[in-house]
């Protein structure tokens, strides 16, 4: 039974189960509880040129079958990451995907070229879809033409596998995905959180200090599944799914819809050991369905 997934020649996963950005930090805490070598891939917290403090608390709120976060991309900054986190992360036999974002175009370019030379980095995931920061993030990802030029620049700056992570909040996500593909991205991560908010009817105040945040978890899985399906009909580069995945069933569903791999985010906050359960579940599913190569099911939805 072969669970290998080939995203690009440089990004080959031993199975389709990855961590998602922002719910796995830089891997250290998880390395104490699970064997990181088992994972298909590890995606880091989103990194910026300078360290970022993120938004004030409260920045987490629970919702029906999901959660909203307004972390605001708090991170230790690229320098500290390269110096103190990457060496540790690189030691596992699992590809490291570095998620990054800028607050202007130059940031994106500089970050990409800084990461380009790092042998422990298997791929870059470019975040143009975070709903939680004032400048950058989601605003870069809205206009297909603008995004085309931004991704093109980043493409010039690195030879590494380049994934671009999209927002589900697009009038036409296929159009956005096509721009990204034309600009030379190697793959698309689909999707980031959905802009959302929570209000306390007793205090008349927003629950989150940042007022708004991004919705994630099982609640949004049906939307993420749609987005993957929609994008997969329009692009030929690989898709990595994110959005509410919580079980091997979800992973199979995303793959049938067209994803090559699936990132597990919020659910791993609830159940840190779910990675192991999901990977085991996939093995069992393959056995029961007499599948030799897991990759064969990608996009095989019968319609």
């Amino acid at each position, binding site marked *: 039974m072969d669970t290998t997934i080939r995203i690009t020649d440089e990004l080959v996963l031993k199975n389709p189960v990855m961590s998602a950005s922002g719910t796995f930090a830089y891997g250290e805490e998880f390395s104490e509880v699970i064997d990181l070598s088992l994972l298909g891939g590890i995606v880091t917290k989103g990194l910026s040129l300078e360290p970022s403090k993120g938004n004030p*608390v409260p920045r987490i709120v629970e919702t029906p079958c999901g*959660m909203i976060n307004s972390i605001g991309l708090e991170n230790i900054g690229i320098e500290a990451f390269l110096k103190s986190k990457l060496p540790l992360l690189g030691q596992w036999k699992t590809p490291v995907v570095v998620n990054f974002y800028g607050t202007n175009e130059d940031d994106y370019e500089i970050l990409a070229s800084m990461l380009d030379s790092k042998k422990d980095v298997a791929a870059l995931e470019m975040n143009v879809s975070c709903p939680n920061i004032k400048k950058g993030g989601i605003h870069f990802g809205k206009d297909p033409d603008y995004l085309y030029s931004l991704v093109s620049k980043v493409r010039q700056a690195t030879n590494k596998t380049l994934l671009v992570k999209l927002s589900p909040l697009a009038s036409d996500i296929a159009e956005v995905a096509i721009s990204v593909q034309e600009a030379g991205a190697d793959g698309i991560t689909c999707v980031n959180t959905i802009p959302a908010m929570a209000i306390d009817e007793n205090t008349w105040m927003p629950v989150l200090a940042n007022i708004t945040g991004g919705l994630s978890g099982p609640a949004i899985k049906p939307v993420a599944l749609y987005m993957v399906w929609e994008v997969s009909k329009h692009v030929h580069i690989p898709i990595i799914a994110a959005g509410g995945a919580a079980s091997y069933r979800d992973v199979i569903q995303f793959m049938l819809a067209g994803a090559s791999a699936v990132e597990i985010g919020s659910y791993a906050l609830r159940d840190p050991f779910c990675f192991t359960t999901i990977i085991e579940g996939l093995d069992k599913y393959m056995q029961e369905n007499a599948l030799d190569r897991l990759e064969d099911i990608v996009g095989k939805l019968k319609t």
Partner: protein
Amino acid sequence: MKDLECQIVSNQMVCEDTYLLQACCDFESWKPGQFVMVRINDSFEPFLRRPLGILAYHESKLELLYKVVGDGTRCLSLKKPGEIIAVLGPLGNGFRIPAGDEQVTYVAGGAGLPPILALAEHIKKGTLIIGARTRSNMPLLTRIQSITGVETLIVTDDGSIGPKALAADILEEVIQDSHLPGIVYACGPPAMLKKTALISQAKGLACQVSLEERMACGFGVCTGCIVATKSGNQRVCREGPVFEAAQIRWS
């Protein structure tokens, strides 16, 4: 940190809205001030686990004391003996145990009781000040009043038990005549913690506070639970929940 399927042994109301839960559990070690993340249901509702301080752990039995404030704790309060909850822990740093003969004072308010009781039952000396709204709000009275070596002072907002006062006010009197070195441990509402910190500082006493913040993971990966300290953002669930009061940037 382990994720343990724990069978509930008992889960009973011990005073208005507050429950004592006992479950079979299997920690290798633990420290007073640590907490657990409890997954209440198999279904996605509630989605996140709930952080609860460890009240006690001995002979493979975990004790939690929790107040019903919302859907998650309500759902937990309906669980019957025999049912299973998933418990991730022990988590966080725990209190610093005094090495020498410092004078020890504890201040607990509201839902801040569990970690402080755990600590007092461990250190077995000092003065324990507990603030509650009213008598019917005070759980485990007998147990508290019989902690070996610990003197207990209870105050309430309405004077229904002990003096009508705030815990932090009593603290001022208690440490009036205290000899240095000494340490004050506190857990409870933010206002109480801040006041406790200021009083302790003014008297030149060390002070550790256990903080609460909304948590998603409880083990340091989401940075949902940060507190501003003098050395930058720290995660309440990982660098805390216990902090040197002097390190906190009180808001």
